[in-house]
């Protein structure tokens, strides 16, 4: 469903993505994109969404190159990291706006029930608390039945109850056979939810595989430990060898 070949991107002198090759083709799987700050997680996601235009390389969604296209985005649902909406619209109007823009049928009602947003539908967005805004954000991202779901730090600002609801939602979407991409910093969330880990380091894919494979490869007890070891090893390699050798 998503194929990325030799993706390069630099912002000025800083190269963020340095030849990413990635295939995410199994529906019904949750892939967690991990990596230290500045490793290119958000840039990679923004490239897939067409918000960042890569310098080199190819991204295909459903076998079609996305270069200069916008129609393919009806295949993608996206949850942005920061929820900020126009101040003077009401929640209902915001939901209507997104429904106006997207083809297909939305199931907003079910999500509004789930998050208890009924009382807020006519409130203006600038009167909502951060957590409620995040719930609106989740509603917007989950109300379509698109085959690919991209979540950028979905856990930020949620109370424990909403967090639990989010877990249920994500698992439910997986059951429906969606391809789900998540970036997060919370390792327990990864251990619990992810079927596959993509670990980015210095703009390259450093590890891709299941949690079991990662634990086995690094002889570690937890994902956190394994990731720490990956980082230590890569630093040692960098010191020992030329930085551009692909040993990691």
């Amino acid at each position, binding site marked *: 469903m998503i194929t990325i070949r030799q993706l390069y991107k630099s912002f000025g002198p800083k190269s963020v993505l340095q030849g990413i090759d990635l295939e995410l083709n199994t529906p019904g799987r949750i892939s967690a994109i991990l990596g230290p700050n500045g490793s290119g997680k958000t840039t990679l996601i923004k490239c897939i969404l067409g918000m960042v235009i890569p310098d080199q390389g190819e991204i295909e969604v459903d076998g079609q190159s996305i270069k200069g296209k916008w129609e393919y985005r*009806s295949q993608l649902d996206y949850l942005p990291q920061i929820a900020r909406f126009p101040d*003077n619209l009401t929640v209902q109007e915001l939901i209507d*706006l997104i429904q106006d823009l997207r083809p297909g049928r939305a199931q907003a009602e079910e999500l509004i029930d789930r998050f208890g947003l009924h009382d807020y539908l006519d409130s203006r967005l600038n009167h909502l608390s951060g957590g409620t805004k995040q719930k609106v954000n989740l509603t917007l991202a989950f109300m379509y039945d698109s085959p690919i779901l991209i979540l950028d730090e979905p856990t930020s600002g949620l109370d424990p109850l909403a967090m639990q609801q989010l877990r249920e939602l994500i698992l439910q979407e997986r059951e429906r056979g969606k391809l789900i991409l998540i970036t997060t910093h919370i390792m327990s969330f990864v251990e619990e939810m992810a079927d596959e880990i993509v670990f980015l380091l210095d703009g390259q894919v450093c590890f891709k595989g299941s949690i079991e494979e990662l634990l086995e490869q690094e002889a570690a007890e937890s994902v956190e430990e394994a990731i720490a070891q990956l980082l230590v090893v890569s630093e040692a390699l960098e010191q020992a060898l030329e930085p551009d050798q692909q040993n990691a």
Partner: protein
Amino acid sequence: MIKILKYTLFDLLRSRWTYLYFGFFLVFSSALLLLSGDSTKVIVSLMNVILILCPLIATMFGVMYCYNSREFTELLLAQPLPRRAIFWGQYLGVALSLSVSLLLGIGLPFLFFGLVQADSLLAFLFLLANGVVLSFIFSGLAFLIALRFDNKIRGFGMAILLWLFFAVIYDGLLLILLFFFRDYPLENLSLGMSLFNPIDLSRILLLLQLDTSAIMGYTGAVFQKFLGTSLGILVALLTLGLWVLVPTMSMDRLARRKDF
């Protein structure tokens, strides 16, 4: 684009800034009409305010809107619609809501007091049209600045500088130029240079409408001679049109290859 425009208008027409802007014009033009009663004089006073205020508010409001709606713009960018639709929709939303505030804020008092005499009606309509055009020009420039500079502080700085340049500095430079080369005939130069400043161009067009160009002396006569003809008016209107088109087309181009 129409959909984005619709919701941008929904949002902005409820914004308290829009009401403040509308309220200011409402109070100001009502006060002027009550105090003076002579609509030509009121139009001249309003002209001076519009020529300074419309560009200032359009620039600041446009930049502010862009920076404030950044995260929401990112959400829109992830939706299945072309980029240009988003930015044109937002731009037209900002420019239209400013124009509506201006038109209602000034139009309502004039309608209410019924003071537009036939001879000043044309000048009045010209004044309103000019305010609208200036709003479109300067909100276009504001969008261009906000897209060009990711840093808010720098963007606001550039916006203020831009306004200051066209509203104040440009005239100063022109005066210095005229002063140093006062021994040469400079009428054509000053005529040409005023085309490069939309605020000056609007002022001249309005003054010519009001038949007060005599106060501008000999240069005024040159302006009258050129801009009083239909060719001159056409050139002036085309130039104002270019002032709307060039920034918005640049915005369009920038938006297409920008990384968010």
